[in-house]
């Protein structure tokens, strides 16, 4: 399949997202902003699960830290300058990922899952039981960040459309950033680590360093998502870091198709939209949601997004007459 046809749905989706605020109501722009933020969160986890082979069950910790850094530093501020708040959140998430990653990457497989879960739970209970930081009530933020040059406001995020475009550009630039590093020498090494870590070490790479850097990049991007969610909702609480949040994030990655970057974004759209509209159909909507996830995993093991290349392939083969696809590797 040519690169153009392959990236067509992606470009169409991007165009639709860019144009959406011109037509959609404020409610839906707000909903879509939330989905974009969650999609960024899921995208960041794909670097770990889909490319490095690290199944982190504690990714929500960095999401929460990104949000809490903003809320704690600026809860009483009279103005939230974006260029102070954003780097602070990113640095806090990156630092936490460095520490948690440094400890966790010593383990692998099921132990890695358990240790990342345990680490995230420690953060969860720390904030849950810290009255200083609002305990289980969390922290409210009454202002939105503002981008200022001198005393001039360039970008005020208190307008829904502005926030929407800001979140969208964060998602797009994170996506492009990941595409870039996956094509670079670093990306080749982490993909090889996922495939066969032992061999990568035998070839002369110190694999733990690469895994740690990957963990920190993913954690920082999750922190960016947490920053956006905190700023957007104006409310940060311990549930940002709950294991439930980490679990839903994994489900989005797998549902959409891990190791694709766009898959987790689609997965986030599917799950958040279902969470929004299924409850209108039945009060047992969770049951329905679970059924849908199971169906996708069973019938599309490479994720919902694998449907498109499959359809393209079917059309092409029926045009040329039935023939098996050639055994060549994808780049």
């Amino acid at each position, binding site marked *: 399949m040519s690169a153009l046809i392959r990236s067509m749905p992606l470009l169409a989706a991007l165009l639709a997202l860019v144009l959406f605020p011109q037509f959609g109501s404020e409610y839906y722009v707000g909903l879509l902003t939330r989905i974009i933020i969650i999609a960024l969160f899921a995208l960041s986890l794909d670097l770990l699960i889909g490319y490095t082979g690290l199944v982190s069950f504690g990714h929500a910790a960095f999401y929460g830290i990104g949000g809490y850094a903003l809320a704690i530093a600026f809860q009483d501020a009279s103005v939230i300058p974006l260029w102070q708040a954003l780097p602070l959140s990113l640095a806090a998430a990156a630092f936490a990922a460095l520490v948690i990653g440094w400890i966790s990457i010593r383990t692998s497989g099921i132990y890695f899952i358990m240790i990342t879960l345990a680490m995230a739970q420690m953060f969860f209970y720390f904030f849950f039981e810290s009255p200083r930081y609002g305990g289980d009530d969390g922290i409210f933020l009454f202002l939105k960040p503002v981008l200022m040059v001198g005393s001039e406001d360039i970008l005020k995020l208190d307008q829904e459309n502005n926030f929407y475009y800001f979140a969208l550009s964060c998602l797009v630039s994170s996506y492009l950033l990941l595409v870039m590093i996956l094509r670079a020498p*670093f990306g080749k*090494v982490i993909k*090889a680590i996922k495939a066969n870590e032992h*061999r990568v*070490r*035998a*070839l002369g790479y*110190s694999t733990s360093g690469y895994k740690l850097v990957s963990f920190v990049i993913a954690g920082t991007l999750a922190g960016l998502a947490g920053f956006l969610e905190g700023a957007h909702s104006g409310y940060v609480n311990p549930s940002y870091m709950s294991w439930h949040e980490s679990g839903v994030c994994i489900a989005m990655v797998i549902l959409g198709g891990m190791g694709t970057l766009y898959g987790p974004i689609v997965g986030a759209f599917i799950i958040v939209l279902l969470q929004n509209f299924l409850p209108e159909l039945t009060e047992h909507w969770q049951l329905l949601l679970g059924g849908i996830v199971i169906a996708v995993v069973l019938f599309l093991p490479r994720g919902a997004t694998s449907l498109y290349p499959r359809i393209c392939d079917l059309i092409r083969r029926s045009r040329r007459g039935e023939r098996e696809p050639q055994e*060549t590797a994808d780049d």
Partner: protein
Amino acid sequence: MIDSVLRTVRLNKSFGGLIATNNVTLEFERGQVHAIIGPNGAGKTTLINLLSGDLLPDDGEILFNGRNITNLPPNKISQLGIGRSYQKTNIFAEFSCYENCWVAAQSRLNTSMRFFRPARQLKAVLERTERALELCGLSSRRDSRASAMSYGEQRQLEIGMMLATEPELLLLDEPLAGMGSEESLQVIELLRRLAADHTLILIEHDMDAVFSIAQRLTVMVNGRVLETGSIERIRSSQAVQEAYLGVAEDAV
């Protein structure tokens, strides 16, 4: 005094009650092909694993070019110039043949912690990859998925990956295992070519291949070195006749 590239001094390794490597002191001469033979369970692969850092010895020393590498991890040992191929095919199954060699070739960069420029623009890595593919005879199979290649081709790729790291000393653990006779001949030819400017340490059960490539032999039995020396010396050794070559038919 021979010019040794690698030397082991009283190397020991046991697994529980099993002594896999028992007081092994060996010298490997620069530029020579040194084969290690012995019946199954003699401790040959364990010895290779100790040399490559995949296993740590209980005690003893390993010296590479005079430097103590006894407790170094596999990645450091690889960076010093010791490459190894595995007996059980150990490749990146879902990568293409080319990508497998690429990852190996890229390991010789000062660092792969590079995040901006696309990897494919690195000319030096590209050349190393091409050379390795050419040497192991898989240039025409470059885009094939490794898991879709024949067993023999996967074994060739295994060697190609090792070569892409441009090692000075090659540790080859049964490179001919499971190969057809045609492929075997190709690989033997390749090993002979490599022997011109590398030092090879070779474990192999195919005695014809061993006698045709190797200059020195070490016979191991039960984790111990039974005899080591030139081919003539091993052939005429009474102890080897009794312990190994006499009953070698089942091991060939």
